[in-house]
């Protein structure tokens, strides 16, 4: 049983601990490592590699934060969370931040009391079906059996979409992505629905990815981003500005390869401020002057992380699309660094 009851009890115990100490940055520094909540395994976003090292796009954000604080991208411990357990884990203080394809919604922000510190992937919910089904549009899915991860926004969008289109469906609730894969591949459900990026990542691990199509409809907005607990703004600022630093770095052409060179000083004042040669921005954040340099060196700027883990040259093959810099017609627009 009892897993969730147990977790609930932990939450209660944890709430006491969590609320008592609001200075997360100090706690993290004292601990010597960052505790980061990620998925239980979604290739490209967060999954252990052959050596058991976590890697991926979301993991990259965790490592950048760790590098900004400690100068060491490996000073981070990962906690795999399911869609259901992630918020309890964060609220209870078991993890310091959550980077797990999590959609920024009103309820999660305001009612569940979390602080989203930005958006690292603009996504939307889609459907994946086996090609042999011959389905070309989500509107043809009336009566289908749909695999879906519980405790997600996906679940709610799905209910809304089918109701709005007057269609019926049979939901098969599932806890983790790998269980969903198993059921979907065994044809125990006709359709798998989740964020489009998740569908692409899941499909990339199939034996024959070409046998499955992602339907053209996008039925929701899913801005995914890292989040922390409400109430500790200093800590929220650290996570927010590490992510912003990665985005600004791409915009200004700072990469993991040239960051050391540029950190010696450039004639671009914004780069100088970011890399700590002008002003004392790191100190204001409660970090050292090289925080952004270290964050960028950890896994590269936003664009590098994207290309390495989920970009067009990986099996997942996601195009930048909405996630291009605003200068390239995308939505990535970090506030100015000054």
């Amino acid at each position, binding site marked *: 049983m009892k897993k969730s009851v147990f977790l609930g009890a932990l939450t209660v115990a944890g*709430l006491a601990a*969590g609320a008592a100490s609001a200075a997360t940055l100090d706690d993290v520094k004292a601990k010597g490592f960052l505790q980061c909540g990620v998925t239980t395994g979604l290739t490209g976003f967060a999954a252990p590699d052959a050596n058991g090292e976590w890697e991926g796009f979301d993991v990259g954000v965790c490592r950048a934060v760790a590098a900004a604080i400690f100068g060491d991208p490996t000073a981070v411990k990962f906690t795999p969370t399911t869609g259901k357990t992630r918020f309890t884990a964060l609220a209870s203080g078991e993890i310091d931040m959550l980077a797990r394809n999590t959609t920024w919604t009103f309820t999660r922000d305001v009612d569940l009391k979390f602080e989203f510190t930005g958006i690292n992937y603009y996504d939307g919910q889609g459907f994946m079906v086996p090609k042999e089904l011959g389905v070309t549009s989500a509107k043809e899915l009336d009566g289908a059996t749909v695999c879906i991860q519980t405790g997600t926004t996906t679940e*709610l969008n799905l209910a809304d979409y089918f109701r709005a289109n007057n269609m019926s469906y049979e939901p098969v609730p599932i*806890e983790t992505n790998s269980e969903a894969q198993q059921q979907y591949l065994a044809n125990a459900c006709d359709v798998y629905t989740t964020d489009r990026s998740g569908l692409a990542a899941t499909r990339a691990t199939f034996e024959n990815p070409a046998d499955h199509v992602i339907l053209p409809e996008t039925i929701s907005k899913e801005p995914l981003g890292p989040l922390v607990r409400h109430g500790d703004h200093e800590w929220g600022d650290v996570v927010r500005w590490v992510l912003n630093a990665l985005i600004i770095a791409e915009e200004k052409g700072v990469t993991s390869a040239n960051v050391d060179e540029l950190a010696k000083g450039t004639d671009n004042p914004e780069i100088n401020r970011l890399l700590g040669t002008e002003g004392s921005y790191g100190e204001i954040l409660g970090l050292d002057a090289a925080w952004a340099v270290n964050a960028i060196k950890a896994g590269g700027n936003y664009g590098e992380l994207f290309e390495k883990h989920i970009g067009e040259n990986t099996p997942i093959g996601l195009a930048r699309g909405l996630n291009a810099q605003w200068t390239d017609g995308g939505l990535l627009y970090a506030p100015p660094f000054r």
Partner: protein
Amino acid sequence: MSALSETPKESFRLRMLLYDTRYRAITIQIVALMGFMLFAAWLINNMLTNLAELGKPLGFGFLTETSGYDINQSLIEYTSQSSHLRAAFIGLMNTLIVAVLGCALATVVGLLIGILRLSKNWIVARLMTIWIEGFRNVPVLLWIVFFMAVLIETLPAPSAFRGDDPDATMNLFGSIAVTNRGVYIPEPLFASGLGDIPVLGGLFYVSADLIVLLLSLFAGLLVSGLIRNRADRIQEATGDRPRTWHWRILSVFAPPLIVLWMLGFHLGYPELKGFNFGGGIHMRNSLIALWLALGLYTSAFVAEIVRAGIESVSKGQTEAAFALGLRPNRTMNLVILPQALRVIIPPLISQYLNLTKNSSLAIAVGYMDITGTLGGITMNQTGRELECVLLLMMCYLAISLTVSMVMNWYNNSVKLKER
């Protein structure tokens, strides 16, 4: 004598609470109790202040809000527009369904295995031992996942039933479809049904056909009872018992059959429609896997309880029954089991309770029990961990207390009446 009772009463002094052995035990207990209550109050207070600090004061208002999610298996009307409370109720019903089915399976299989384990046949007895050791020594969660995996991976998908030369066909003269999404069986339909009756102001509906059917069955049983009483009376008066069995069978079966005929009873067969089978009753994989796993796992424990119960009846009873000329299976039914039941029932109660609590592992196969709805999706979507967990604990407590009440009542009715 009177002088003794008149010893002057020692006046009570405060330090006697500590030094006088008559009071010391009570003092210690009261102090411990106070300490415990203070500790509990501190815990609760700490929790409430911290919740308030987090901006999440305790409250149950969220239960009336729309849930927003769908549940596949629900006995009563439910949509994503229903409230969280209703979702919790659906979950509770699903918990009860699998608990009742599981207990029934565990009892039947357990009884059988327990008796067979005592068989004189070496192979049969050994096989039963393997069954028992196999089921009870592997965690039930693994059994649940295992049964689910077997159902999903080995059975054909509904699409395999499609086409002119399908890979799979329906069983039992085309009335049952066994697929990897569950088993579809024929459903009872009424051509001229009576509709549904709203209960509790339309909170849910009960089929009027079912009520009429049950009433007619009840009436039949009543009539049958009257016939039996009459036969008893005649036998007592004359010594001859009239032959009544055909009348009694008729009186039990005729009313329901007539009612069924009048309601236009027929079976609705499942048939392939679109992605899935339509019509018929859909027993989902998740239910079947959970039911089998919980039932068979618990059956191993029940079997051991049954064996212990039977072995507790002294051998003399069997020998006496044989001496009276009873055949072995009648000896078992008439002599051994009734006595063994008294030993069997108390531990059986706790197995039933275990099974019910184990059913909260349902989410492992996506079965929407109360832990999956109230303690799962609702908790996750609303962030009301404490409230949900409290409600959940209350639900399981209520179920468990009810089960043990009923079983204790039954136990009292079979236990030895000592005077």
